[in-house]
C-alpha cells in the first residue's frame, strides 16, 4: 500500500455507520472515466458500453451465466444446417425513445452501417464474413454469411450490436452519440456533460426486457445519473456517505473496509473473466529462446501476487484462461509451467547456455538477458511488474520496466520496440479471446506476440465454424495446449470486479458482460 492509499484508507476507516442521503427514485452511479462518444459502433470502451446497454437493445441478450443466449429485440431465431444463414424474427411492439416504431429496416441499416468499408468501425470484424443482411418483411431479418461463424449470436449481444434509429443517426450526423442517441433501451438520453455527468430517464413504454430479469419493464428507477469521480478515496467516501448510490470502480484495497461498512453492500458478478498476463514478443532476439520463456513462467509466484497485490481478490493464473471460461482446456490448468519453481527455472537457463555474470545476471555470447517489459502505469500494473521484476532477478534475468500512461500505452505496444508487455484483458469465451490474439493475420496487433502458426489458424477456423459445440471445444483446446506449451505468455492472475452499493438500493445483481455490471438495470429499485 503506498502513502496515498494509506491516507485514503484513513478516510474510509472513519464513520462507517453514517446514514445515507435519500436519493428518491434517482440512482446516482459514480464512475472514474467517461467515454468520448456514446455511438455504440464508434466507441469500444467499457465506459461507453455501460451506458449503451441502458440506452439501446441488441437482437439477443446474454444471460448472467455468460453462455446462454436469450431473446431481446428478436423473439426467436433459426440457424441453417450449414451454419451460414441466421433468420431472426423481431418483436413487433418495440419503439425507440422518440416513439418511432422499430422495424427490420432499422436493423438492416444498423448492421450495414457497422460494415461500411468507407468508414471502418473498430468491432466490424466481430460481425463475421457477411454475405448480405436483408429484411424479409417488417419483422424478419436474414443474416447470410460466407462461412459459418458460431460466435455470431454472442457478438450480437455486445454493444456494437445495439439497434439504431436510422432517422436519428441521419439527423444528428457527426453529433450522433454526442448530442444524443435514440435507442430502444430501458432508459433514454436526457443530458450529457462530458467528463462530468450523464443523466438517463426511464423509457416509459419499455416492456421488452430480456427474460433474465423478473421485471420486463419499465425500469423501476426513474432516472440514473452517472457522475465522474476519478479519485478513489473521494468516490468510496461518497458511496459510504450517501452522496452516491453505487459504483463499479471499487479499488481492491478498499474491499475489506467496504465489507465491514454497515450501509454498503459489496457484490461481484459470477462468470466474470479477466486475465492479467505478460505477453512475449517471440520475434525479438531474447524472446526467441523458448527456454527463456519457460524459465520466466516458472520464476513467477502467482499465489503471492494474488495475495499481496490484489489483497486476495484475484485467482492465481497457471493457465491462460479462467477455469470457468466456456471451452476452457482443463489440460492447461496443471502444467509444470504454471507452478512456481525457481530452481527448475535456473536449471533451464543453465542448460540453454545462459550463464550468471559477476552481478548474478545471466548472459550468453556476450548478450545480457535483460528483456524490456512495457506496462500501463495505472491500477495494479506497476506493482505486478515490480513483483515480476523481483522474481526474474532471483533467477538471473535483469528485467527492465518501461511504464506509460493509458493514452500512450496502446501506441507503444503497437510497435516492435519491446520484448514483453503486460495487459489485463476481459473475455467471455475461449473463442472470444483466442480468435483475437492468436490468429497469424492479426499481427502485429492484437497478435502482439507475433505468433505465426498455420496449425493454430486451422484450429481457430475449425473452432469458429463448428456447428457442434464439442468439435469447437476440441479445436480451441488444441490451440490452448499449443500456446501454453510454447510459453507465449506468462499468465499472472484472473482478477475480479466489485459493485459497491448503498444498502437502500435493492436487487443489484451484477452482470459480467464487458464490465457493464448494471446491464439493463430493470430490477434495481430503492
Amino acid at each position, binding site marked *: 500500500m503506498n502513502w496515498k492509499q494509506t491516507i485514503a484508507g484513513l478516510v474510509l476507516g472513519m464513520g462507517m455507520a453514517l446514514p445515507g442521503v435519500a436519493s428518491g427514485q434517482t440512482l446516482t452511479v459514480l464512475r472514474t472515466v467517461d467515454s468520448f462518444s456514446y455511438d455504440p459502433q464508434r466507441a469500444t470502451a467499457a465506459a461507453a458500453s455501460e451506458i449503451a446497454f441502458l440506452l439501446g437493445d441488441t437482437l439477443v441478450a446474454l444471460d448472467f451465466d455468460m453462455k446462454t443466449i436469450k431473446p431481446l429485440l428478436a423473439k426467436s431465431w433459426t440457424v441453417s444446417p450449414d451454419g451460414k444463414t441466421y433468420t431472426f424474427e423481431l418483436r413487433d411492439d418495440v419503439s425507440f425513445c422518440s416513439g418511432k416504431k422499430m422495424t427490420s429496416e432499422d436493423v438492416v441499416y444498423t448492421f450495414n452501417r457497422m460494415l461500411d468499408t468507407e468508414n471502418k468501425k473498430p468491432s466490424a470484424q466481430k460481425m463475421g464474413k457477411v454475405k448480405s443482411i436483408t429484411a424479409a418483411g417488417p419483422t424478419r431479418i436474414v443474416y447470410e454469411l460466407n462461412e459459418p461463424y458460431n460466435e455470431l449470436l454472442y457478438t450480437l449481444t455486445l454493444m456494437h450490436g445495439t439497434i439504431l434509429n436510422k432517422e436519428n443517426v441521419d439527423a444528428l450526423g457527426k453529433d450522433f452519440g454526442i448530442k444524443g442517441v435514440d435507442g430502444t433501451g430501458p432508459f433514454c438520453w436526457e443530458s450529457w456533460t462530458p467528463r462530468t455527468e450523464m443523466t438517463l430517464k426511464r423509457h416509459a413504454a419499455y416492456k421488452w426486457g430480456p427474460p433474465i430479469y423478473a421485471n420486463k419493464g419499465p425500469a423501476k428507477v426513474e432516472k440514473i445519473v452517472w*457522475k465522474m469521480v476519478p479519485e478513489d478515496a473521494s468516490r468510496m467516501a461518497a458511496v459510504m456517505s450517501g452522496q452516491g448510490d453505487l459504483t463499479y470502480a471499487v479499488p481492491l484495497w478498499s474491499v475489506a473496509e467496504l465489507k465491514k461498512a454497515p450501509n454498503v453492500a459489496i457484490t461481484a458478478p459470477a462468470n466474470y473473466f479477466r486475465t492479467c498476463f505478460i505477453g512475449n514478443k517471440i520475434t525479438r532476439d531474447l524472446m526467441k529462446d523458448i527456454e527463456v520463456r519457460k524459465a520466466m513462467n516458472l520464476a513467477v509466484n502467482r499465489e503471492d501476487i494474488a495475495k499481496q497485490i490484489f489483497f486476495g481478490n484475484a485467482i492465481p493464473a497457471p493457465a491462460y484462461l479462467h477455469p470457468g471460461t466456456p471451452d476452457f482446456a482443463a489440460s492447461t490448468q496443471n502444467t509444470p509451467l504454471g507452478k512456481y519453481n525457481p530452481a527448475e527455472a535456473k536449471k533451464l537457463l543453465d542448460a540453454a547456455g545462459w550463464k550468471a555474470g559477476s552481478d548474478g545476471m545471466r548472459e550468453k555470447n556476450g548478450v545480457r538477458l535483460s528483456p524490456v517489459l512495457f506496462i500501463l502505469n495505472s491500477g495494479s500494473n506497476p506493482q505486478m511488474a515490480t513483483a515480476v521484476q523481483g522474481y526474474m532477478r532471483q533467477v538471473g534475468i535483469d528485467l527492465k520496466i518501461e511504464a506509460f500512461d493509458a493514452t500512450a500505452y496502446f501506441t507503444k505496444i503497437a510497435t516492435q520496440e519491446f520484448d514483453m508487455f503486460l495487459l489485463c484483458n476481459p473475455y467471455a469465451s475461449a473463442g472470444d479471446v483466442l480468435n483475437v490474439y492468436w490468429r497469424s493475420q492479426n499481427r502485429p496487433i492484437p497478435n502482439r506476440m507475433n505468433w505465426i502458426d498455420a496449425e493454430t489458424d486451422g484450429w481457430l477456423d475449425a473452432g469458429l465454424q463448428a456447428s457442434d459445440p464439442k468439435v469447437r471445444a476440441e479445436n480451441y483446446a488444441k490451440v490452448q495446449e499449443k500456446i501454453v506449451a510454447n510459453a507465449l505468455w506468462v499468465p499472472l492472475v484472473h482478477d475480479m470486479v466489485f459493485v459497491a452499493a448503498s444498502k437502500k438500493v435493492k436487487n443489484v445483481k451484477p452482470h459480467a458482460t464487458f464490465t457493464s455490471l448494471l446491464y439493463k438495470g430493470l430490477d434495481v429499485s430503492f
Partner: protein
Amino acid sequence: MATYVLQRLLISIPVLLGVLLIGFLLLQVVPSDPVELLAGPEATQEVRDSIRKDLGLDRPLYVQFGSYLVRVLQGDLGRSLISNRSVAEELWLAIPPTVELTFMAMLWAIPGGLALGTWAAIRRGQWVDRLVMALSVTGISVPVFFLGLMLIRYVGFEWQALPFVGRPGPLYTWEGLVGIILPAITLGGVLVGPIARMTRTTTLEVLRADYVRTARAKGVREGRVVLAHVLRTALIPIVTLIGLQAAFLLGGAVVTETLFAWPGLGQLAVGAILSRDFPLAQGAIMILALAFILINLSVDVLYTRLDPRVRRR
C-alpha cells in the same frame, strides 16, 4: 491609458500565435496517439489506418498545423479529434467551473492572507507573529491533495456538513454555492501561506519608512496608518504575486479538480494533451495563454492605480 492597453493587446497576438506553434510542436513529442483511443486495443491495422485518414493525421505536420491555423484565424477552433465535439463547446463547458473555483478560492485566500500577514507584521516577534508564520509555512508545505482529503474526510464524510462530489450547479444557485465551499477552501489553502508571508515581509519594510513614522507623529490612528499608508505601499509586490497565482490557478488546479470531481479547464487540458487531441489541447492552451496575458495586463494597470510613480512613467 487606453493606448497603452491597446498596444499590449496587439502585442499579445504574435504571442498567442507563438504559443500555438510551440504547443503544436510539443504535442508531437507526447508518445500517445488519438487513433489508439478511438480504435481500442483489439482493432486491426486496417481499421487504425482508416481512422487515421479520417482524422487527417496521415498528412504532413506542416499541412496539419497550417490548416488548423487558417481555421483559427477565421474564428473556428475546430473539433476534438477524440469526441468530435466542437472545441469551443468543450471550452465553454470547462471555463465557467474553473473561473468560479479560482474566484472563490481567491475571495477568501486574498483577504485572509493580507490580514494574517499584516497582523504578523504589526505584532512582529510576538506569539501572533510566530503562529501566523507557522501556519503559513504549513499552508505552503501541506500538499493540496492532503488538505482536500482531510476536508472530505471530516467535513464531507464524517460530519456530512457539505457535498464533495462534483459541481452541483452554477455559483449563482444555492447548490452551486454550497458545492464550491470545500474545493474553494482546498485551492485557496495553497494561496494563503505565500500571500501572508509576502504581506508580512513587505509590510515590515514599509512600517520602518519615514513617512509612516511621520504619520504616527502627527497622531494618525494606528488602524488608519496601517490600512491607508502602509498596506497601500506594501501591495505592489503582493499584487504581482496574486496575479501570477491567479493565472497559475486557472490551469493548475488539476489536483483539486480531480479530488472533488470538478469539471474544470485544468482537467480538460491535461486530458487533451495526454491523448494528443491537438485541436482541443491547442484551444485549452490558447485560453490559458490569453488568461495569463489579460491577468498580467490587469496587474500592470493596477500598478498605476497603486503607485503614482508608475503612472507618471
